[in-house]
Structure formats: structure tokens, C-alpha cells
């Protein structure tokens, strides 16, 4: 998703962004259908506008320095990328420190600033006074037409954006069901909470931290490893030392930003926006702004 946001600015290309929009639309419609059938119950976070802005922006800078978001770092570990492994380790430590350790007061302070709209009501639909289905129709119908008409160069390897978007959307919706059926709380794909939980479990052995999300984040690099082996692309690769330290810093910043924002780009920009959450919308906007400003400051300006 980092590349999807970054490429809009850097090379004026929307290929990956279209895959993201398609996945978001499919997941959003499917989980609202599942809720209608009583298979899911939504828990929408309050409108943490300040932490969404600060956390989203900080996360955007972090993933720019890390060279990828938290989820892409997890799967790149499975492809043999040592730099991504360092990012993941730093992300886990920073997420745990911010959600239940030394940096927790910072997150608590920022998240204490919020607008109370009502329980489970901090959604875009509620604020606009629209039925969620009507909002989805207004949002996704024009997007569907745009996606249908748009064209992109075929990829050099791997899937097209359409296939990627459809599969990711289905997986994202299935994740909601899997999480709910496991007895964990009803939420979809997420990386931040489970990353902190993994460290809490490793540090104190409390098995209450071993929830569905922890197994999800363990599954991501394992799946990527199998896919990389299958496509003969697994290779141990390490960045230069200076780059490695830059990635480590980026991973730590991402962990702090993600907890402040109540989730990373997956937890907010895919799963949270699927709920039509207002907090996730603000987080996503500031995450994109952070990505663009970070890309310009740390990479484009230096290369000019």
C-alpha cells in the first residue's frame, strides 16, 4: 500500500492504488452483507481526530523511511529481505512500547482528544446522515465505472491489479469471519495490535495475548515464504548498513504512529475504512500526506 500511495506522487501512476480501491470496495460491501446476515457485529472506534492526524502522518513518514509499510515488511521477510526483518522487529518493539510500555502516555494523551458522536456512530455514513448502503452506492458505483474503464500496463511478473484487488478484497472479508469465528473480536486484517501482543506474550508468557491476529501476522511471512519458493524468488537480500539503520528507524516510527492512530495502513486504510470509520478516513488522509511529504523530503529532494 506504501507503493500505491507513493506512486501517485512519484510517477503519477495509479496501478496499485486501483488494486487497493478495488479490494476496499469488495471488502466493504461483503462485510456489510455479513453484518446484515448477523454473522458479524461492528465495533466502530470513537472519532479520535487528533491521534488519527498525528498517528497517520507519523506512520506515513515511518513507512517511507522503512521502504514499505508494516504488512509489506512482514511479507518481505518471507522473501528473504533482511532489511524488512529489522523493520518488523523494530515495529513490534515500538508498537508494544506505545500500546503498553514507556511510550503509552503519549498515545493515551493524544487519544484522549476525541469527538463523541455516539456508540458505534463515528462513521462517514452517520455523519452525512446517510444509510451505509446508500453511501456505498454513491462511493463505489462511480469508482467501479472508473476502474472498469481504466487501463494499466501489465505487470512484469505476478498478478494484474484487478486480480490482486479482487483476491485481497475477498481475503480481507474472510479475515473478518475468521477472526470472529476464532473467538477474537470482530475485526479484519490488522498488524499493529497483534505485533504488540506477540511481544507481550513472548515477554511474560500470558497466553491471553495469543489471539487470532498473532497467528495472522505469523502466517503472513510464512505464506510469502511459500509463494517465494514456489516462484523461485526466495533469496536472502540485505541492504547497505546505512540503509539498514534507516529502515530500523522507519520501523520504530511506524510502530509509534500505528498505535497512536489505532492501527497501521492495513488496520485503518483497508479494514477500518471498510467499517466506514471516520477515524480511519482521517488516518488514511494523513497517512498519504505523510507518505508524500516523507518521499519528497527523504528521497526526491536528495536525488535532485
Amino acid at each position, binding site marked *: 500500500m506504501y*507503493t500505491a500511495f*507513493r506512486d501517485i506522487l512519484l510517477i503519477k501512476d495509479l496501478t496499485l492504488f486501483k488494486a487497493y480501491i478495488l479490494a476496499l470496495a469488495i471488502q466493504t460491501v461483503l462485510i456489510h452483507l455479513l453484518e446484515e446476515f448477523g454473522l458479524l457485529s461492528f465495533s466502530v472506534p470513537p472519532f479520535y481526530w487528533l491521534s488519527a492526524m498525528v498517528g497517520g502522518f507519523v506512520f506515513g513518514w515511518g513507512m517511507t523511511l522503512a521502504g514499505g509499510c508494516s504488512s509489506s515488511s512482514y511479507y518481505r521477510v518471507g522473501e528473504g529481505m533482511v532489511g524488512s526483518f529489522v523493520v518488523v522487529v523494530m515495529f513490534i518493539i515500538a508498537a508494544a512500547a506505545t500500546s503498553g510500555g514507556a511510550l503509552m502516555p503519549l498515545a493515551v494523551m493524544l487519544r484522549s482528544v476525541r469527538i463523541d458522536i455516539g456508540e458505534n456512530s463515528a462513521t462517514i455514513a452517520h455523519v452525512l446522515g446517510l444509510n451505509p448502503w446508500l453511501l456505498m452506492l454513491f462511493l463505489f458505483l462511480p469508482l467501479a465505472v472508473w476502474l472498469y474503464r481504466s487501463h494499466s*500496463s501489465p505487470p*512484469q*511478473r505476478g498478478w494484474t491489479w484487478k486480480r490482486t484487488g479482487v483476491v485481497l478484497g475477498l481475503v480481507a472479508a474472510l479475515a473478518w469471519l475468521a477472526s470472529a469465528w476464532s473467538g477474537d473480536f470482530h475485526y479484519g486484517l490488522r498488524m499493529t495490535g497483534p505485533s504488540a501482543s506477540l511481544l507481550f506474550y513472548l515477554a511474560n508468557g500470558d497466553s491471553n495475548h495469543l489471539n487470532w491476529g498473532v497467528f495472522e501476522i505469523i502466517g503472513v511471512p510464512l505464506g510469502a515464504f511459500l509463494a517465494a519458493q514456489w516462484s523461485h*524468488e*526466495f533469496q536472502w*537480500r540485505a541492504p547497505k548498513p546505512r540503509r539498514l539503520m534507516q529502515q530500523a528507524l522507519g520501523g520504530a516510527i511506524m510502530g509509534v504512529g500505528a498505535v497512536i492512530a489505532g492501527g497501521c495502513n492495513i488496520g485503518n486504510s483497508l479494514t477500518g475504512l471498510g467499517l466506514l470509520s471516520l477515524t480511519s478516513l482521517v488516518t488514511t488522509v494523513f497517512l498519504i500526506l505523510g507518505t508524500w511529504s516523507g518521499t519528497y523530503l527523504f528521497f526526491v529532494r536528495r*536525488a535532485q
Partner: protein
Amino acid sequence: MAIKTLDVRGEICPDPLTLTLKEMQGLAVGDVLKIIVDSPMALETISRWAQNVGNRLVCVTELGAGQWEITIEKLVA
């Protein structure tokens, strides 16, 4: 026609692309740049950029597991 090679293995995104952009600025129309990458995302981004701006993506050669050589001919000044 000059042929230059740029090795961006070990660089993290988006540096493979920004370094490619910088190198391309120094080339004349008709020159060829070969970029060696070790990131699938860099492979896709550089290839898409080359086609989007009107340069010719001559070929992509797999050098080994997780390593590719992208050959681009500069067609636009």
C-alpha cells in the same frame, strides 16, 4: 548510442527509482540504461515508470533468484 549500467541492489524503495531518474537525466535520447534490481517492487515501479513517460522498455531479464536486469531505451528528453 551509449549503454550504461546502474546497480541498485541493496537500495530500498524508492531509491531504485530515484537513482534511475537521476541517471536517465544524464543520458541522451537513444541511449540505453540497464538497471539491476533485487526488489520485485522496484522491478514493477521502474518498468511502469519507463512505459508511462514514453521511454521504451526493451526487456527484463531474470539474473537469478530475486534479481532482474531492466533495459530501458531513452526516447524522451
